[in-house]
């Protein structure tokens, strides 16, 4: 046996750090956009969605990485979908049992975690060729990157759309309504989420120049 790599070596840490910034699953790899936009009107459902996705991603990445050597390549998509679907059913049942109202708000989007491209993308691109521990780190990193975008978008949309943060009426406590300020209803509507993500991409690419697309 060659010498063992330490559990949190530099290479492994990079697996966590990269997807949060330079290789963010949502705004750089264009994965998992559907749910990132649809559940971000309020912070609470967005947070639950982010946690659920990270859990499903971590679990299926590890499981798939464990069985990766026994699966014929030809049927791997069905196997991947089965693993993901199993994890999603578990998460869905848990949400229904403990946070029923949030699970109602998320409606079909928990089920849609199955087709969230982050999952298939990471299973195909990473877990298929790596050991369980790095796969777990990769899943956590990508989950964190996804969560970051969800939380930023939902924070802005909730603050300016309904004047609250996590259900707490910030704008009302600040007393800005007396000055004639009104909540911007447009921010809470779906199209604004798209424009907001567009702007986040703009900011991100201005900072990391190498991501700019060629004409």
């Amino acid at each position, binding site marked *: 046996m060659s010498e063992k790599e330490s559990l949190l070596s530099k290479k492994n840490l990079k697996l966590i750090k990269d997807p949060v910034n330079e290789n963010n699953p949502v705004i750089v790899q264009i994965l998992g956009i*559907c749910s990132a936009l649809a559940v971000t009107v309020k912070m609470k459902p967005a947070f639950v969605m982010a946690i659920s996705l990270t859990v499903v991603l971590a679990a299926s990445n590890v499981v798939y990485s464990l069985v990766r050597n026994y699966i014929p390549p030809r049927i791997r*998509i069905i196997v991947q979908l089965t693993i993901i*679907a199993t994890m999603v059913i578990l998460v869905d049942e848990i949400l229904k049992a403990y946070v029923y109202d949030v699970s109602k708000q998320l409606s079909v989007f928990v089920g849609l975690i199955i087709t969230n491209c982050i999952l298939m993308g990471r299973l195909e691109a990473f877990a298929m060729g790596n050991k369980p521990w790095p796969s777990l780190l990769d899943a956590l990193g990508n989950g964190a990157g996804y969560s970051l975008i969800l939380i930023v978008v939902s924070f802005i949309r909730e603050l300016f759309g309904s004047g609250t943060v996590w259900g707490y009426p910030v704008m009302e406590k600040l007393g800005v309504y007396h000055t004639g300020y009104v909540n911007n209803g447009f921010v809470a509507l779906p*199209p604004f989420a798209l*424009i907001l993500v567009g702007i986040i*991409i703009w*900011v991100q*690419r201005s900072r990391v120049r190498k991501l700019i697309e060629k004409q």
Partner: protein
Amino acid sequence: MQNLFDIFVKSIFIENMVFAYFLGMCSYLAISRSVKTASGLGIAVIFVMAMTVPIDYLLEKYLMKPGSLTWLSPGLADVDLSFLSFMVFIAVIASMTQLVEMVVEKFSPSLYNSLGIFLPLIAVNCAILGGSLFMQEREYNTLAEATVFGVGSGIGWYLAIVSIAAIREKLRYSNIPAPLRGLGISFIITGLMAIAFMSFMGIKI
């Protein structure tokens, strides 16, 4: 008849998969560089949706709803298999995609070649699973309603991807700030298109 027409128009314009629910966004953004490929993928999506939604409807009605197994034996009235629906739906979609791929390959090799890798990608297009899940959530009453909903949603998605592809083809000649090029501007344009589609929301049918 009136009812079916309502569902059809509603699923294309008012409840458009892309602009109202953001479903199928990933392939919508990734494969909208040229109108030709976009329209090929769009047609494949219509095809798959028109088949999976009715099939899932039948499976839901005669297999998974609480009390739906009574046609087998009255003793099974308490059995509720609805927690299996995700797994069943995704399996139907994956196998349908495989089937469509084989049929297209056999009967129209030229279309098969032009679609290339996009056909298998349909399996993970969330608009398709979304169609089945919305069908389940909205509890359509007849097979005809479910079918019309499937076809309509597919056409709505087709409309969306073809129109963004057309706009992106034109965009190539405009002067966009470098960091906004490509992905960023596509997002903002989709947002503007979604605003335009919201004008259908006032229509009550």
